[in-house]
């Protein structure tokens, strides 16, 4: 057992936990932040993506001790002042989810990509960089569109996917 302290969504938290506790277990079971989902538990699917000091990570493959002293952001911490993050809005607007299970991970991954990717975001880049996030119902077209739209809004750039300009949503 160890006393683990970290900042989660801007709030300082401390809990006594087993050393073998995973970050996702700490978030869901100790802090009751159940927005982060456990999908595959094998580092494949990306449902559990959170930000650790602003960098995306699969929280099913991080020990709580590895995140101690750091600042963790989960899907619950993305909206600011009651206002959804632009990517959350874009997911709704572009119908980028169906069952919603993978959505927290998709949005955390997409938000980090928009915030940190050094180059231009286009469809190819988004598809390559989002490879670690699997969706088993909608496919990826609308997820990519939502990320490109939110990316353009946040970065103040033009949308590079021509199908977005006409709001086309065909598969």
């Amino acid at each position, binding site marked *: 057992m*160890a006393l683990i302290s970290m900042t989660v969504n801007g709030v300082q938290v401390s809990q006594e936990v*087993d*050393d*073998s506790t*995973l970050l996702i277990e700490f978030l869901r079971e100790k802090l009751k932040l159940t927005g982060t989902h456990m999908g595959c*538990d*094998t*580092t*494949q699917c*990306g449902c559990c*993506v959170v930000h650790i000091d602003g*960098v*995306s*990570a*699969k929280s099913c*493959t*991080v*020990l709580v*001790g*590895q995140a*101690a002293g750091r600042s963790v952001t989960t899907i619950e911490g993305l909206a600011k002042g009651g206002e959804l993050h632009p990517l959350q809005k874009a997911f709704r607007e572009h119908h980028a989810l169906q069952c919603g299970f993978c959505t927290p991970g998709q949005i955390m*991954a997409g938000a980090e*990509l928009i915030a940190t990717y*050094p180059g231009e975001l286009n469809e190819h880049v988004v598809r390559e*960089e*989002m*490879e*670690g996030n699997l969706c088993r119902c909608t496919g990826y077209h609308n997820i990519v569109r939502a990320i490109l739209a939110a990316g353009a809004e946040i970065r103040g750039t033009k949308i590079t996917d021509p199908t977005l300009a006409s709001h086309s949503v065909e598969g």
Partner: protein
Amino acid sequence: MYPFTYHRPKTIAEAQQAFSEGMDATFLSGGHTLLPTLKQRLAAPSDLIDVTGIPEMQGIEEAGGFLKIGAATTHDTVFASPIVRRLIPALSGLAGSIGDRHVRHRGTIGGSTANNDPSADYPSAVLGLGATVITDRREMASDDFFVGLYETAREPGEIVTRIDFPVPDIACYAKFRSPASRYSIVAVFVSKTGSAVRVAVTGAGASGVFRLPEFEEALSADFRPEAIAHLTVDPDMLLSDMSATAEYRADLIRVMARRAVEKPGQIQSFK
């Protein structure tokens, strides 16, 4: 996972001490191989010693004609490093081709090298560039370091602290990967320094990463794809699994080696 005690030492001396005090301790770096292994209860270490908080195991520098990379440096840091891009662009590209974005944020060059997974990317660069593996007690040539499947010449408790890459004239990498696991089914790293050529193959060997002396000889004489077009690889020494048969891997090695040489300085990923 079976219970264990987690340690986060700040110096190599502290890490050595934690290892010697543990009943059956092991080192943790990015954890992207070790933690999945522990979840499957395939290992039960008493102590996990996290080496990523040790400052001297971090960072990238150019010194004395070598590119020196701290063992706990993440794949993403190697990929994004302007120094790596300038000196060995194929190594930067290789790091950027590992797993996915989130995995690259956590996994480290030293962890991948010390683990010597037969499908990992880094062992092919370490062997293909003739790098030197630096540990807390000695320096080892890459030819002596990789011993077999998940096996290296490391002694119990020996910590890989840094990897020194000589800067080649040309390096290139071509990989054919499983789109599901994102691991290489076959990947070939080629480097040329003066007239000396090294060709290292990962993903395919029944004993892990290995070199192809025949290909090296042919490319030393003539560094063009045509020079290796007639060469074949013996499937006897290769892995056969659900991704590919040994015969298919043998053919892929030939194709990936040719494609690597076709695009000097670049990395290509096929899936």
